[in-house]
């Protein structure tokens, strides 16, 4: 699904290198957790995957289903099936959530050469997905993310993920700002999406989320590199001993 080779990326404006020779492979159908202390480059990695212009890739390669995506803009990457659930979803004043969903779904369908969804079909899908996430339909009439609580924003992200049916989901600190009930609902939403042809990258600082979204693989990111990989037991090890031990070990 995803193969990152010796990736180097820096902040375009300042030239500060954040990702420093990162290697990572995520297999089809795999749920991979990326953990790391603050400032290790976790969010940067998610932005670089999604194609944010503020970061420049200076070296290395990102292969998605064997193809390089570095030349693709964010919309092209999204249409090819890469979805980023943002740590801080943006507020878009004046644009109703429902309307946004429609435009996004149809833009992606169009890019794939499919016909736009009819309004009844669209409504059916949205109602169904929102129901599974215990979301109030009234919320969908409100402008996207404007005035949403932290939990509502994260749920709206998962709703978009369900509706857009991506192949590679990147969840950036989806657990931050969620109480335990909201966390369970969000995790359920993600678990429903697990399938052999879909991979999920869960970026998180804490092990807590991984109790609900159980990963197949855990990678520890530090100073822009994966310094250790393992199975879910690695997450428990981190929970107990913190990052210091692993960092020392790697150094």
């Amino acid at each position: 699904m995803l193969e990152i080779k010796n990736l180097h990326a820096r902040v375009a404006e300042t030239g500060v290198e954040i990702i420093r020779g990162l290697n990572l492979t995520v297999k089809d159908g795999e749920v991979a957790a990326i953990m790391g202390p603050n400032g290790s480059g976790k969010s940067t990695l998610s932005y670089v995957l999604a194609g944010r212009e503020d970061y420049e890739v200076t070296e290395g390669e990102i292969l998605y289903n064997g193809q390089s995506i570095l030349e693709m803009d964010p919309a092209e990457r999204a249409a090819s099936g890469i979805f980023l659930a943002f740590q801080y979803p943006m507020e878009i004043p004046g644009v109703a959530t429902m309307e946004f969903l429609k435009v996004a779904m149809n833009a992606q369908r169009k890019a794939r050469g499919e016909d736009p969804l009819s309004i009844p079909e669209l409504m059916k899908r949205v109602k169904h997905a929102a129901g599974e996430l215990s979301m109030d339909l009234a919320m969908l009439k409100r402008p996207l993310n404007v005035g949403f609580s932290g939990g509502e924003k994260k749920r709206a992200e998962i709703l978009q993920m369900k509706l857009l049916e991506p192949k590679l989901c990147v969840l950036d600190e989806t657990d931050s700002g969620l109480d335990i009930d909201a966390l369970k609902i969000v995790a359920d939403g993600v678990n429903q999406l697990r399938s052999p042809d879909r991979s999920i990258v869960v970026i998180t600082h804490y092990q807590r989320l991984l109790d609900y979204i159980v990963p197949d693989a855990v990678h520890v990111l530090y100073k822009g590199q994966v310094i250790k990989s393992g199975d879910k037991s690695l997450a428990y090890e981190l929970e107990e001993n913190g990052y210091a031990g692993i960092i020392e070990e790697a150094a």
Partner: protein
Amino acid sequence: MPAVQETIEQVRKIDVDQYKYGFETEIETDKAPKGLDEDIIRFISAKKNEPEWMLEWRLGAFRRWLTLEEPNWARVEYPKIDFQDIHYYAAPKNQSGPKSLDEVDPELLKVYEKLGIPLKEQEILAGVQKEQPGEFEEAGDNVYKSGRVAVDAVFDSVSVVTTFKEELAKAGVIFCSISEAIREHPELVKKYLGTVVPTTDNFYATLNSAVFTDGSFVFVPKGVRCPMELSTYFRINEKNTGQFERTLIIAEEGAYVSYLEGCTAPQRDENQLHAAVVELIALDDAEIKYSTVQNWYPGDAQGKGGIYNFVTKRGDCRGARSKISWTQVETGSAITWKYPSCILRGDDSQGEFYSIAVSNGYQQVDSGTKMIHLGKNTKSRIISKGIAAGFSQNTYRGQVSAHRKATNARNFTNCDSLLIGDQCGAHTVPYMEAKNSTAKFEHEATTSKISDDQKFYVMQRGIPEEEAIALIVNGFVKEVIQELPMEFAVEAQKLIGISLEGSVG
């Protein structure tokens, strides 16, 4: 919002020159010779079979105009206009006055068909049938109506036809061209014309008073709610002509009317002058809602050609509890100089101004409003959204004043500007004048650009850059779009998308 997709479609289809109403029609015309003097005014007045008092009124205005100077305080620049190099009258031959639909030149009907304006009475405005709002969509505060609209079509200097006249007459509503009103309803015209915008008001309004050729007249009698939307569609076709239309709308006690105005012109290299005057009068408990979608030819990508749109629009809330609401979507014209205003004379009267002004290319916009609080407990609200792209200059200029006796005057003003690109300018010039201690004015203004964060977020969902910007811009202007009648809201959103075409890059 079906229009978003529509916008995108339109944007995609259009080439460099995006103005789609730029065609010219070969129609035989009757023109006055170029130039302006008392004889030309006599000629116009005679063409219109006007009574003597009207001619005198015009001549009075003309003599006054000779003593006036062109205003220069607005933030617009243009070469000096040669007022002697303009035709002040041009009309399709054999079309000196509105006739019934059957008698209208089929070529003219084709023009309006091409523009998407329904002149057949069984039809409704183009676009509406196809775009029923979806189940989950809210039409703002507007209740979705049947979409029947009466149209007064003004072609160059004359009104060619007015639809639904008879049906409106049954309700007591007079809707006709101003020329017809001068002949048929002189007592009403005499009583109200020039009472809101006097012939001495300003350079362009005074010029208009001297040479106006046509426009619409609406009279809604006491207690009547006008049974359908009224609309005027202005089209400049002839070369080197000025268009000077005059609109007068009167809503008597307790009456209600919603009026829409649209404008287009062919693509030409020369600049053309459009100097209109609109007067609204609302008596006790009356309400007038006036919406404009202004799409005059803006000039080409190099800034050549385009309409100079120098317009005086003013509403007089003459009666207690009356209300006048202006909504405008300005996307056209090379230069826009326009300040639809409200004089809040009646106690408890209300004025509103909702505006979207989009400028691209080399367009210059200097537009805003005046809210003059004279009566007690008067309220006004101003929402202005300016979007500047390309090499354009976009200025909001607005005045709010409370006079000595305007106790409890209230105003809320919000003007936001959005810049797309670093070659354009966005300017905000509000004037607030309070002479009453119980007045309460609040003004806020912001200028920003579309944030990279927002754009990235929208694109991450698979929406290409140009569509992402159209989507965010449509969100930015939503508050104003909601004020438009449904039929125009759809058109307006498309227009905004088209106007910003090519601004990304």
